[in-house]
């Protein structure tokens, strides 16, 4: 079981690298699907059964399908990666390494790795529901309001009249 945790962790990282480095958005989307499925498997191995199912249904089943649908709807050209891996990439790499070092310094003294004994209904629908609808019921309602706002926003974006063509004179043509 531990072997599978390592396997899925490495798969998730590989998919993430593929997402960032692939040239066409559809390849990125496929790599992201692989990453999200690996993360869902990791959840299942960590006894988070409900979250694993929700991750697969909502993330892979809804969000990624929506993104892939958008990619297919738009006529996209492959992006020239080479021109961007200059100064910006170097800066981002330096920031990323500094961030990893800071995380390492923080994690070094912490007692990680020793897992506690789990209660009976840990991570099941019953266990999650009991906590979600008693202790965290306000969070649940706020998430509902957030989703309502997102739906109204998406609707407003989809139904409004298109903006007039930009008349910015400073804009140079390619």
């Amino acid at each position: 079981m531990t072997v599978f945790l390592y396997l899925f962790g490495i798969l998730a990282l590989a998919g993430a690298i593929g997402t960032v480095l692939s040239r066409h958005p559809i390849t990125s989307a496929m790599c992201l699907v692989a990453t999200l499925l690996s993360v869902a498997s990791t959840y299942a191995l960590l006894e988070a059964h409900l979250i694993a199912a929700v991750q697969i249904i909502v993330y892979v089943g809804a969000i990624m399908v929506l993104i892939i649908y958008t990619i297919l709807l738009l006529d996209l050209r492959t992006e020239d990666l080479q021109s961007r891996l200059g100064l910006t990439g170097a800066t981002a790499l330096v920031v990323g390494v500094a961030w990893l070092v800071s995380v390492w310094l923080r994690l070094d003294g912490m007692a990680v790795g020793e897992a506690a004994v789990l209660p009976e209904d840990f991570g099941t629908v019953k266990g999650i529901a009991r906590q979600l609808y008693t202790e965290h019921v306000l969070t649940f309602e706020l998430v509902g309001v957030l989703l309502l706002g997102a739906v109204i926003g998406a609707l407003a974006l989809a139904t409004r009249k298109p903006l007039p063509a930009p008349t910015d004179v400073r804009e140079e043509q390619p």
Partner: protein
Amino acid sequence: MTPPIDFLVWVACGLFGIGLLGLAVRRNLLVLLMCVELMLAGASLALIAYSRMWADQDGHILTLVVIAVAAAEAAVGLGIILSLFRQKDTLDLSRFRLLRH
């Protein structure tokens, strides 16, 4: 058996860092959205791993919230991307200067 929590936290850090790197390097708006999803996945993985370590379900609840936020973000983000593409016929970030002074 005890799961390797420290390895999973490193994977979570890696996912977040790779997403951040992609956010800085890539120019395609759709790929940027996917990089944000990567960062959210990294944060969720750390939450679930620590949830398992402390045998506490609060991390699971927070991950559910994160998934809902990701769904909202995808809905609004894809709407914005579609309307931008209708306007400019491209998704290249360097071609957008709506907010530039």
